[in-house]
Every structure is written in C-alpha cells, then in structure tokens.
C-alpha cells in the first residue's frame, strides 16, 4: 500500500510521481520552483495549474518553510498562449 501511494502521479503533464517529488524535497527543494528544477513537475502544458496545489501541500508537510512563504513573488505575468505571428502582428495595429 505504502509503495503504491508513492507511485501516484502528482504532475500529470510531466508524469512525475509522489516519490520523485519527495526525493526533490529531500535534495533541498523548499519551494515550488525548487521542485520544478529538480523534477520538471509544473513545466508541462498546463504550466502547473493542475499540480501546484498538491506540490505546495507536500512542501508544507515537509516543514521546510512556513506555508505562507511557499509562493515566492514572481514578476512574470502569466503568458497567454499565442502564436509567435500573433505577437508580432499586434504591433501593426
């Protein structure tokens, strides 16, 4: 039972299991980004929309940091998915 639990997929886009995320936390990851660079969880097509909450919970449970600190401020606006061509065309308007 324990083992099956470990193999549950947390990030569906990138097929990253609970075990892999725990390994990243053991390797020192204390933030969503830390898990992302070590496992690629959150880098899939949905850009983490589906898996972020679960990973945050796991980080909070690990006690590495208070939960409030788990969302480091980011200056990146979420990108609207659009074709390169559309980005360029905008300018001509």
């Amino acid at each position, binding site marked *: 039972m324990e083992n099956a639990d470990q193999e549950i997929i947390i990030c569906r886009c990138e097929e990253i299991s609970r075990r892999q995320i725990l390994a990243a936390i053991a390797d020192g990851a204390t933030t969503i980004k830390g898990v992302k*660079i070590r496992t*690629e969880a959150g880098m899939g097509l949905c*850009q983490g929309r589906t898996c972020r909450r679960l990973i945050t919970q796991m980080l909070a449970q690990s006690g590495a940091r208070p939960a409030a600190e788990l969302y480091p401020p980011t200056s*990146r606006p979420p990108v609207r998915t659009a*074709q*390169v*061509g559309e*980005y*360029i065309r905008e300018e001509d308007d």
Partner: protein
Amino acid sequence: MGRTADVAVIGGGVIGASIAYRLAKAGKKVVLCERYDLTAGATGACDQMVILQSKNPGIHLRLALDSAAMFQDLSRELDYPIEYFRHGGMITIENEMEMGVMTDFVARQKKIGLEVEIISRADAAKRQRGLADHLLGCTFSRQDGHVNPFKLTLGFAKAAKALGAEILIDAEVTGFKEEGGKIKGIKTAKGDVDAEVTVLAAGAWSPLVAAQVGLTLPIKPRRGQIIITEPGPPYVVGGILSAQYIVAKYHPETLRDAKSRGVQLGVGLALSQTAKGDILIGATREFVDYEVSNTREGIREILKNAARLMPGLKKMNVIRIMGGSRPYTPDGLPLIGFPKGREGLFLAAGHEGDGIALSAITGRIVADLLTEGKTYTDISPLDPNRFPLIAS
C-alpha cells in the same frame, strides 16, 4: 552552528556548482552557499547553447573548445544526464557587412582549431527548414552543441555532494570573516563558514558581495529576455545565432547609427530546441540594473527578429517567458583569480553570455589554481587585477 571548510563557494549557479564539484573531486572540503536555490540566477533563465562559433578567436574560443571537450563525457562522469548534444550550429548572415565580419571571424577561428565554414543559403536550407529567403548564407560548425543548464548545475551539485561537499541553499552570504587583514570565511543566513579560501561565484551579484570587503568589480548585470514555445516535434536543428550578435559584441562601432528599437535593446537571435521539444527564442542584451522582468517591447522585438530570420517560427505557440541577469564585464572575459590586497578571496565571475559553455573549464581552472597553484594554460587575460579593483 559554525562550519569549517577548505573552500567556501558563494553562489549556486552553474559556475559555483562546477567549481564545487572539481574542488571536491580534488579532495577539498567544500561548502557552497546559495542565497535562494541552485540555478536561481542567470543559470535558470538562459538559453542552453554551447556554441563555439560565437567566441572571439583567442583565449575565449580556446577555453570554449576545452570546455566543450569536457562536456562530451560529463554525463557519465557525473552519473547524471546533462543532455549535452552536439547537433552543430549555424550563424545567419543577412547582408554584406555581416558577411565581411564573419568571413574574417571564421578565418581566425579556424587557425585556433575550430571546424567552421561559411555555407550558402541553399546548403543551410538543407540543414534547417523555415529560414528566410533573404539570407546570404550561414556559418556552420558541427562542433557546436547544447546542454540543459538546470541538469548541468544539479548534476555538478549532486556529484559534489557525493564527494563530501556541502550545498547550503537559502543561505545568503551576508558578510566576510576577517582576521589580521585576511579573509577567513563567510557569514551566511545558515551560520558561519570558516574557510582558508572563499571563492566568489555569484555571477552578476558578485560586485554587491565584493563591496563588503571594499572591492569594486567591473561586473554589471545585463538583462536577457527569452521566450519558450510549447513542446513540439523536432524542428530547430542544433543552435542558431544571428551575425547581429557577433557584430554587436565585437564591432559595436558599426551599430552606432542604428536607430531601431531592436538594436537598442541588443536583440540578436539565439535559437535552439530542448530535448523535451520546447523551442527557446532569445534574446535581448539590456543594461537595466538587476531588473529581470519581461517587457512587451522586448518580447515583441525578439519575436520580430526571430521571425524575420526564420519565418517558419511564426506558427509556434509561446507558453513561457523568462529573464535573467548576465554577468557582463567590459572586455567580455570573466574575472578568474586572486584579487590583490584581499588574501583569502578568489574571484570566478563575469561570464556574461557564455557561462554555460565555459562552466566545465572554469571549474577545472579554479580547482587547478587552488590545489596546484597553476593550471594547464596561460590564463593571464582572465586575471582580475587587469581592472582597478580597489578604489584609491
């Protein structure tokens, strides 16, 4: 809690991680201190190119060649897949002025031992779909490649740990420990580290750290913005740069009257595709202090430039944008060595746009110097004391 080490390394980017690994391998007790997390700086916001062709024929190219040779066996050595592939690389040439600069550049690079040539537009098109019709040709080198900067850094760190190094994250360095005029270690958010030598490898942030011991480093942050598309089937073959980049870097005088926004933002094409299939499209080169946010203008100019050189990109879907601070130096070469007058401190920073490519060789040089007192080649052009480091 205090720690003791032979060497303390400041900065967990690709340079700090490579140095920590080589030193640990040479038998040194290493403690690496990183303010946020591994790859939090430029290393985590960059392209992935190990392009030799863009390097000035001289020490820069020689070191890049030696570094590339080290990458070939590195996955096995680190027991970690760094995703280094030698798929070759091209530099696009759009006009006669660029052709002139590149013809001379290529001739001098060949003398140093790089396999590189200028190929026609037709031959370039056989290699790469989607190129613009107006190109005069491209340079081509089969020795160019790319590597995953995250995996490379994590791989160095993991191997360093396996050799006994300690990697402290969330461990900002807040000051130095000095004794009798010598630097004896560092103070960090995770406690003091006593060390015989402290290596400063904090990339663009190195001047801020060095200022705490009265050193003025000529390093400045230079923002690069890049764009990432959704993963797709293989499209971009190897790495592609534009000659704009070379011309801007080595012949800035030719750009003096260029008024376009793209030129002012330092836009030059840097294009590659990751093992997963995302296409990375870069980049700007802007002096905007430590700002790493993205601007609409920057994104648009990058994409305009990319689509001009390679109209085939227009249909790709953008899903992510990034920005990072490259560690710029006035002469384009890093500072590697002991700064005079600050015994106990060693500098290894300022790789600007080539830190990934030069990481492996930088680790070797630093470890050589700190264990043997000498290294395999003349690195006097990298001596930090070529700049006035102590304000008089």
